[in-house]
């Protein structure tokens, strides 16, 4: 068994060898620096993406189901989806009455490409969403300021509006929009609330919405051919399966589907975004691993090369150590520690580089809020482990060769 003193001795030698050749050590470990840089940047970005995903499903509601003609996921056959009849307001109301397990069942409808005007400024392509008063209990009821409209306001088609975060920000970057009068597709509305920011990288659009009472919406855009969606709030994630099952049965009833017929609606939920995220993840991961692998490959060759040089340079030293009683494994260990220390040193530089770049990126783009302005510590841990393994791998052949040197030959070397 190798003594602990030998371990420290090896680490000390490795440290001295690196200090003695700083420039060489730096150049040698450049491949590792870049490799670690890619690993950490990839990890950081994926962490950000996961964060964004969590925020997204929270914004949509982890216990929410949305019955719609359209599918969010895109897994259903697009052409058959297009042929589906829109869900009518009547069907939505009927479904709401029949549902027993859900905490809330409410119809809502939306119109894309709405136009909002305030004091001569116009914002196009805003989604206008007609909702009912109970929507205050869904994620859009999570208001930054103001209030949601009441049932009375809904029933009486009052012209009040709750602005999405982006819309509010576009018109009123530095003041409250509450109490202002804005025109939506030409009609005057009183701003009574602003929704909290909900969107992230892939769901930015959900902040580009305004919410008005559904009766007002129907009055403006009609109900005949306009489809509505049914929002179903399960109350908790545990109840989701049960509620989804009932929703499906009741939706089939109100759509008059016969047994054997396929569903002509989709029950959308936040989890569907997982598909989109996982595709993006896969790309980032693939590119990251590709670049990392390439850098490590170059890095390993560099380290291996310098370790061969180091072994040759120190042939005499190896001879001396062997004469004094160093066993083969001690010599091997010494060079493995040296190559891993080199890599660890590279990892450390790579980490500093990442920290700098990450800080620069997040400072330059403060709006991209899903990117955290710090390097997650577990990535530093992973990077260290990876670099040590890479170091051992790169040092293996040179270290083995060093360990097998004949002491007589090595002592004679000048």
């Amino acid at each position, binding site marked *: 068994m190798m003594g602990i003193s030998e371990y420290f001795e090896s680490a000390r030698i490795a440290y001295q060898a690196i200090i003695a050749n700083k420039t060489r050590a730096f150049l040698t470990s450049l491949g590792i620096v870049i490799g670690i840089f890619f690993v950490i940047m990839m990890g950081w970005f994926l962490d950000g993406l996961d964060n964004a995903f969590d925020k997204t499903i929270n914004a949509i509601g982890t216990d929410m189901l949305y019955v719609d003609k359209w599918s969010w996921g895109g897994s259903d056959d697009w052409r058959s989806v297009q042929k589906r009849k829109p869900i009518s307001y009547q069907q939505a109301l009927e479904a709401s009455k029949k549902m027993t397990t859900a905490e809330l069942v409410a119809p809502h409808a939306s119109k894309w490409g709405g136009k909002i005007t305030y004091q001569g400024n116009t914002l196009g392509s805003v989604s206008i969403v007609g909702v009912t008063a109970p929507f205050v209990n869904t994620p859009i009821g999570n208001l930054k300021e103001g209030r949601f409209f009441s049932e009375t306001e809904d029933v009486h088609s009052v012209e009040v509006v709750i602005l999405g975060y982006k819309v509010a920000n576009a018109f009123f970057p530095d003041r409250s929009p509450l109490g202002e009068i804005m025109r939506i597709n030409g009609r005057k509305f009183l701003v009574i609330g602003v929704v909290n920011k909900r969107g992230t990288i892939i769901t930015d659009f959900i902040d580009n919405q305004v919410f008005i009472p559904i009766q007002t919406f129907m009055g403006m855009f009609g109900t005949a051919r306009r489809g509505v969606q049914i929002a179903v709030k399960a109350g908790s994630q545990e109840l989701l399966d049960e509620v989804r099952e009932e929703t499906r049965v009741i939706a089939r009833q109100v759509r008059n589907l016969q047994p054997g017929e396929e569903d002509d609606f989709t029950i959308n939920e936040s989890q569907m975004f997982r598909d989109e995220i996982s595709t993006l993840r896969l790309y980032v991961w693939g590119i990251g691993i590709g670049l990392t692998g390439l850098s490590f490959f170059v890095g390993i060759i560099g380290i291996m090369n310098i370790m061969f040089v180091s072994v040759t340079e120190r042939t005499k030293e190896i001879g001396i150590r062997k*004469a004094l009683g160093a066993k083969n494994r001690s010599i091997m260990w010494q060079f493995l520690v040296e190559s891993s220390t080199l890599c660890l040193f590279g990892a450390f530089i790579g980490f500093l580089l990442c920290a700098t770049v990450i800080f620069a990126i997040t400072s330059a783009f403060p709006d991209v809020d899903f990117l955290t302005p710090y390097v997650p510590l577990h990535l530093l841990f992973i990077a260290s482990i990876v670099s040590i393994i890479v170091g051992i791998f790169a040092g293996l052949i040179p270290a083995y060769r060093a360990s097998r040197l004949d002491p007589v030959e090595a002592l004679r070397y000048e």
Partner: protein
Amino acid sequence: MNNMNNDIIINIEDVAKTYQMGAETVHALRSVSLQIRKNEYIAIMGPSGSGKSTMMNIVGCLDTPTKGTYLFENENVATMNDNELADIRNRKIGFVFQTFNLLARASTLKNVELPLVYAGVKKDERQQRAFAALESVGLQDRTHHKPNELSGGQRQRVAIARALVTKPSIILADEPTGNLDSKTGVEIMRLFGELWKNGNTVILVTHEEDIARHAHRIVRIRDGMIESDTINPSPAEV
């Protein structure tokens, strides 16, 4: 085994060493038998090409013979593997080389500690023993100097301290004064004389008569054979 035999540290019987140099077989040692007892002061002499260096490498367990037996304190060294040999060298042999062979980047103290590192001695004890060894060669105030900050004589004394630090069975010195001026050489030889007086077994490997005459027994090697093995009737005192 009688008392006399218990005293034998090195027992070499009919040892030969051959090397393959391309198509040619080189007989570095043809047949050598040699016994060395505890607290002997012996010189192994021979001109270059005599097989003297090969003899030293085998005695020092840096190399194993092609033929014959070599018992080091009754352990058969001839059949040992690399690691077993390293262990013998570490515990039982103290080397002193012509070119000192100190590690340039390490301090005097670290150099002397090195054999103890490989012996697995803990740091405190290691430093204590290394310091004591340096003290015994008169270098206690040079512990933190690097080899290149020392004179040749001082470097060789560091090497001797390093050889002594494990309390080895033999001290094997290969041309220990070869790189020193004659005055310093004399000082080093005086040190070897003291080591012998303190009960150490000293083996000098040299081609210089001046050095060999300090020993009490002189073994001459020529053409891979022992030419003569004589007692030195009047060892030189310094």
